[in-house]
């Protein structure tokens, strides 16, 4: 029985790989330069007490009970774990290898009911790479497969939240939003024009008020119909990928008219309608470095977008440079937004507490605060700087390995004579 040894061997390797692993989920991080949104804020010499995987207390004057294991942060910055938005983590391995892509469907039977939770792969090599960027939670969103041009399915499906902690189950929360792309690409799936797009959407939402029937010319399956009912009722947010200012206005009007809860994603021209977005209290997921007029949807794309939206009072969350392999770039993107006028504290919030709030889990994660899950990162410098790296990463109070497939390749070849 050769294979019986395997789990033991792997377990042995894991402990070798993390000699300082804190197995106990009760410990205290002392001498921590705490940097967090929320009431704790910045504490230059603070302590974070973790009990059973949760933050029990944090701040300048925290008593550490006798016998509790101490992690000395040596004055380094400690932040909440980063919360990534607009990702496909767990749903992709190699972008060009179709068999590894689970973020989209060609099915003509389902669209809105497509559910990313069933595609999640906890063994994905992308997870440790993102984690080494300090990311501990992520929104996983479905995407579109447009290979069948005849398929007019406006919705990509349901998004979910994941934990990047090691373990067999990475699903953190399902059913956190319904993805709908509008604008130029969205219109292509709804009659080929913006002028058809919004008429058809209104008709589709109107059809949800009637009981489902298989003859509906919308071709919605019963399960699509059920899922969309929770969007129509305002329970499940509609995550609308949209870029052009005029399209954003249409979306805001549509949401007001139907009483929908909306999250904007992309919103490159959002700065042009910042006050209207703020007035509707609609949050925005964005990449502040998305400043290329790559099509006629985003002629106004600007590096100032994040700063202008935030100044207008919009809740923003900052993404990385793609949905998978470059999610870790999100903290540099937050730093680049600071260089273009976003306040430093707002930038940190946009990669921690803001996304947690937008996706309804700010009671659990997003800041260093008593009662929240112990997702913590100790950094060797300013977390928004590309020159800085995490020193230690905790998810649910469990210390994570500081390794990925990439770091192992680096070790294998870095010091080798050929």
């Amino acid at each position, binding site marked *: 029985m050769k294979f019986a040894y395997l789990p033991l061997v792997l377990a042995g390797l894991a402990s070798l790989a993390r000699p300082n692993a804190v197995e106990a989920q009760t410990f205290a991080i002392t001498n921590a330069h705490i940097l967090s949104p929320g009431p704790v804020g910045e504490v230059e010499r603070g302590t974070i007490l973790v009990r059973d995987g949760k933050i029990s207390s944090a701040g300048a004057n925290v008593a550490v009970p006798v016998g509790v294991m101490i992690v000395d942060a040596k004055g380094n910055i400690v932040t909440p774990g980063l919360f990534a938005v607009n990702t496909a983590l767990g749903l992709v391995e*190699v972008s060009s290898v179709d068999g590894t892509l689970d973020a989209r469907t060609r099915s003509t039977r389902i669209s809105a009911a497509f559910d990313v939770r069933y595609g999640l792969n906890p063994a994905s090599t992308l997870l440790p790479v993102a984690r080494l960027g300090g990311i501990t939670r992520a929104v996983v969103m479905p995407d579109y497969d447009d290979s069948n041009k005849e398929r007019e399915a406006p919705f990509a499906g349901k998004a979910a939240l994941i934990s990047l902690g090691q373990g067999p189950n990475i699903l953190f929360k399902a059913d956190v939003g319904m993805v709908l792309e509008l604008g130029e690409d969205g219109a292509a799936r709804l009659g080929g024009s913006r002028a058809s797009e919004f008429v058809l959407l209104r008709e589709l939402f109107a059809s949800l008020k009637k009981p489902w029937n298989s003859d509906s010319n919308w071709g919605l399956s019963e399960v699509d119909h059920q899922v969309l009912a929770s969007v129509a009722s305002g329970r499940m947010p509609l995550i609308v990928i949209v870029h052009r200012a005029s399209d954003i206005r249409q979306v805001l009007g549509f949401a007001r008219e139907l009483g929908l809860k909306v999250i904007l994603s992309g919103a490159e021209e959002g700065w042009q309608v910042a006050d209207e977005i703020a007035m509707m209290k609609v949050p925005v997921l964005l990449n502040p470095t998305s400043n*290329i007029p790559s099509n006629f949807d985003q002629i*106004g794309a600007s*590096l100032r977008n994040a700063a202008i939206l935030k100044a207008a009072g919009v809740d923003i969350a900052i993404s990385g440079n793609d949905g998978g392999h470059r999610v870790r770039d999100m903290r540099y993107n937050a730093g680049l937004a600071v260089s273009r006028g976003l306040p430093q504290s707002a930038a940190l919030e946009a990669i921690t507490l803001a996304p947690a709030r937008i996706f309804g889990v700010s009671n659990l994660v997003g800041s260093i605060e008593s009662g929240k899950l112990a997702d913590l990162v100790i950094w060797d410098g300013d977390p928004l700087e*590309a*020159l800085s790296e995490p020193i230690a990463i905790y998810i649910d109070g469990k210390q994570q390995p500081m390794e990925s497939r990439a770091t192992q390749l680096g*070790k294998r070849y870095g010091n080798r004579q*050929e």
Partner: protein
Amino acid sequence: MLAGCAVSANSSSVAGAATLPEPTLSKPKPEAFASTYRAAPAADTAIVGASILTGTGARIDGGTILMTDGKIVAVGRDIEVPASARVIDGTGKWVTPGIIDSHSHLGVFPAPGVDGHADGNENIDPYTAHVWAEHSVWPQDPVFTKARAGGVTSLLVLPGSANLFGGRGVTLKNVPAVTVAQMKFPGAPYTLKMACGENPKGRYGSRGRAPATRMGNVAGFRRSWIDAVEYARKWESYERKRAKGEAAEAPKRDLAMETLSGVLKGEILVQNHCYRADEMAVMLDVGREFDYRTTAFHHAVEGYKIADLLAAEATCVATWATRWGFKMEAFDAIEENAAILASRGVCVAIHSDEQRLIQRLNVETSVALAAGRRAGIDIPQEEAIKWITLNPARIMGVADQTGSLEPGKMADVVLWSRNPFSVYAIAEKVFIDGALIHDTSNPGSIYRSDFELGQSVGEE
């Protein structure tokens, strides 16, 4: 420690010309496709009191750089500034050479990226050594200005990588212009884009034609070089006869063969898109078989696996830090690639290949530096700045003219708001040949392309 790439010594001999002049003409014709670049008017300027990363491996704190008539005149601590020079206070700021991108598609895949603008890949045939990227460049691509805002003063614009031979690249000075000739870097050698791996075999194999495999790729290269050797031999024989005064008929010009034979003569630099270590090693053998040098492997995400081989061949690497996993041949890309290569004596450049990345090659370099440090390779910033200045200049064959802050070189200079390896750093002033082309203190002066005029564009 850092063995250099060979610098083309007589690059000006091929400046802007078809490589094989027609000798039967009785009177000289004006050079076709010549650079018409003229430096913008430049006031003599001194930046004083800045931290200067010279691009030669030095850092000078509280330093002065003096630019006169578009050239760098002096760099150092105790530089006398002539009364006539405009003085810029650099206290608390940093100065570097102009940033150089050795792999870009600006102008050939411009924004907006609509079909009418897709001019970077002549992807109907794998052998297109006859096309020249400069005949596609749209100088109104709004991204040229955005790259300038990231400090980019020169760039190599290459054809795409769909084909085995993609065509000739063009080296540009990043100045606002109406014609591509006005941007062409005077005296820069031509380059040939080649591509290994998944792109050519995937593009053509899926259409039921060669190449369909990596061995098909290599066979395609070898057959073409055999043709090029034959072509070069015919012209040599003809020229020899003419030199002796014998009657001889000129062979018919062939644009693709002119480019390939230019490589064989050492006049045109090979820029080879290649990801995997094993494939790069094979391509070096192809070079051995036909006696040509590969100036640089581009992307080369597995360069770190053959660092010593690349160092021995004096072949440069132009690569990223953050891009990986988008196809099989990019699955082994690691952030510390550049650091490992540099530590083993390879000339490394960080390149963009991308419209957003070209605006922050400094930050991409920081990612590579941090990853190197994590892996136990601590490379000083004064060395790493070469990855986006001097080393790409070497790859482009212009290191004798730009890429470092040395007297006599072009005054291609960036004044940064702070340490350029910081995400918060902004390129406040960008000088090209001494002329202040981009100045954030005067937003109204920042060039907007014709395309953007009258549209609701934002700042930066």
